[in-house]
C-alpha cells in the first residue's frame, strides 16, 4: 500500500512544479516581469492620489485598480491579443477571455462612454447656455487645443489616428477621449485615459497661471450682465434641437450628443423623474466602475512603459494649456466688438475646455480674487457645457476624417 502511494513521486513533483510556475511570483521573473512590478507601483501611486488627494477619485480609483489587476502576472483577467489590430477576435474570445475582457467589450463597442453621457446630460443644466448662446463660441475656441496638439503629435511621429486620440485630451472630457481613442487607436487607451483624468483633476493648477498671464486686472474684474431667465419649454426644446441639428450635420457625433441630450431631456421634461434619477446615480455609478476597471486594464506594462507614454503626457498638458489660452483669447477678441454693457469677463473663456464643473469653478475663483463681489460661476457654466458639446463635435469630426 505504502509503495503504491509513494510510487507516483514523479507525478507529485511535476504537479508541484506546475503549481509553482502558475503562481504570479514566477511571472515577475519572466520577460517584462520588471515592467509589471513598475506598473503595480504606478497603480499604487494613482490609488494614493485618488484616496489621499481626491484626484478625480471616482475614475482614477477604478482605473488604478484595473491597472493593478491587469499587471498581476498569471491572473489572466485581460488579454491584449484578443483585441489586437483594433478589433475583437471573436474566434478565440470565448475560449480565452477573462473577466476584464468581457467587461472591456463595453469600451470597445463604444457603449460605456455613451451611457456615461446619458448620466452627464441628466446632471447638466444648459440654462446658462440657452440664456447666452454666444457661449458656444467660447466652447468652440477651447477646442483649438485639440487640433494644434493633433498636429504636434503627428509631427512627433504618431500616426494620424494616434495623433487625433492624443489631441482629444485637450477637450478635457473623459468619456469623449475614451470613446474616440477606443475607435481610433485602442492601443493608447490606457495612457490617454490616465492623462485625461489626471489633467482634469489638475485643472485648478494648470489653468490659473495661463488665465492670469493673458488678462489684465481690469479685464478680470469685469462684471457681466445678469442672465435672462429661461422657460421650461426652452429647456425641453433645447436637447431636441441640438440632437437633431448635430446628428444631421455630423452623424459620427450622434452617439455622444444623442445620449447627452437624451439624459438632459429626461431631466428637463419632468415626467420621467425615476429614469432621470437612475441615469444620474445607479446607471452612472455602475458604468463608471466598469469603464474605470477596463480602461485601467489596458495599461499593461508593454503598452504603458515606453517613451510614447511620456510623449502623450507632455502633449496632453500642452493640449489643455492651449485650449485654456484660446478660450481666454477669443473672449478678449469678442470684447473688442461688444458694447460696454455686454462685455465678457475673459476668465470665463477658459471654462470652454469641458471639465465640468471644475473649469467653471476656477473662473469663479479667479474672478473673485480681483473683485470679491463678482459672481462668474453661472456665466462660466455656459462655455463649460458648450465645451462638452464642442468636444463631442470635435471627436465626431476627427472620427469621420481619421476613422
Amino acid at each position, binding site marked *: 500500500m505504502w509503495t503504491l502511494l509513494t510510487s507516483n513521486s514523479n507525478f507529485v513533483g511535476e504537479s508541484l512544479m506546475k503549481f509553482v510556475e502558475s503562481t504570479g511570483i514566477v511571472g515577475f521573473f519572466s520577460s517584462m516581469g520588471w515592467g509589471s512590478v513598475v506598473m503595480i507601483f504606478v497603480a499604487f501611486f494613482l490609488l494614493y492620489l485618488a484616496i489621499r488627494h481626491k484626484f478625480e477619485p471616482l475614475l482614477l480609483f477604478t482605473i488604478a485598480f484595473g491597472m493593478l489587476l491587469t499587471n498581476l502576472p498569471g491572473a489572466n483577467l485581460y488579454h491584449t491579443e484578443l483585441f489586437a489590430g483594433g478589433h475583437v477576435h471573436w474566434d478565440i474570445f470565448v475560449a480565452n477571455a477573462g473577466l476584464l475582457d468581457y467587461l472591456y467589450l463595453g469600451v470597445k463597442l463604444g457603449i460605456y462612454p455613451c451611457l456615461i453621457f446619458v448620466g452627464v446630460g441628466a446632471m447638466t443644466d444648459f440654462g446658462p*447656455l*440657452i*440664456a447666452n*448662446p*454666444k457661449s*458656444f*463660441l467660447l*466652447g*468652440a475656441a477651447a*477646442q*483649438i487645443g485639440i*487640433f*494644434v496638439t*493633433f*498636429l504636434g503629435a*503627428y509631427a512627433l511621429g504618431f500616426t*494620424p489616428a494616434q*495623433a487625433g486620440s492624443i489631441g482629444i485630451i485637450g477637450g478635457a472630457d473623459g468619456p469623449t477621449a475614451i470613446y474616440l481613442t477606443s475607435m481610433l487607436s485602442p492601443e493608447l487607451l490606457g495612457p490617454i485615459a490616465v492623462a485625461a483624468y489626471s489633467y482634469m483633476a489638475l485643472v485648478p493648477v494648470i489653468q490659473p497661471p495661463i488665465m492670469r498671464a493673458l488678462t489684465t486686472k481690469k479685464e478680470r474684474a469685469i462684471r457681466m450682465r445678469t442672465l*435672462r431667465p429661461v*422657460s421650461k*419649454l*426652452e429647456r425641453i*426644446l*433645447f436637447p431636441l*434641437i*441640438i440632437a437633431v*441639428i*448635430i446628428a444631421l*450635420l*455630423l452623424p459620427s457625433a450622434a452617439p455622444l450628443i444623442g445620449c447627452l441630450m437624451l439624459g438632459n431631456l429626461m431631466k428637463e421634461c419632468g415626467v420621467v423623474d425615476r429614469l432621470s434619477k437612475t441615469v444620474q446615480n445607479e446607471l452612472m455609478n455602475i458604468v463608471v466602475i466598469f469603464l474605470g476597471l477596463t480602461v485601467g486594464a489596458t495599461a499593461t506594462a508593454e503598452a504603458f512603459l515606453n517613451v510614447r507614454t511620456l510623449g502623450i503626457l507632455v502633449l496632453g498638458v500642452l493640449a489643455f494649456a492651449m485650449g485654456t489660452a484660446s478660450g481666454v483669447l477669443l473672449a478678449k477678441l469678442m470684447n473688442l466688438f461688444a458694447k460696454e454693457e455686454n462685455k465678457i469677463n475673459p476668465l470665463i473663456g477658459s471654462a470652454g475646455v469641458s471639465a465640468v464643473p471644475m473649469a467653471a469653478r476656477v473662473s469663479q475663483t479667479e474672478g473673485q480674487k480681483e473683485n*470679491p*463681489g463678482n459672481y462668474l460661476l453661472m456665466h462660466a457654466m455656459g462655455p463649460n457645457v*458648450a465645451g462638452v*458639446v*464642442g468636444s463631442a*463635435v*470635435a471627436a465626431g*469630426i*476627427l472620427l469621420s*476624417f*481619421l476613422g
Partner: protein
Amino acid sequence: MLWVALISICLVFFVLVLLVYVMKLFGWIFTRKPQQAPAAVKPVVQGQLHEEEIAAIATALKLYKGALHDRESEVLTILSIKRAYSPWNSKIHGLTQLPDRK
C-alpha cells in the same frame, strides 16, 4: 495633415456658430412680447379700484422694492476710533475710589 486640422477647426466653428444663431432665434421667439394695440387710457377715479387690484399692485410694488438693493463696494473695513483723552470719560476717575489704609 495641416489641412485636416484646419478644416476640422473650421467645421467645429461652423457647427457651433450655427448653433449660436439657432439659439438666438430660439431666444428671440421666446422672449419677444406679443404686440398689442395700446389700450385707451381711462382716467382712474378714486374709489373705482377693486380690492383684488389694489392687492395685486401692492404685491407687485413689494416684490419690485424687495428686488432692489444698492450696490456697495463689498470691501469690509474696520475703522479704529481715536478719542482725545479727557478726565471726564476716564474710567479710573469714574470708579469709586477705595480709601487707602495708611
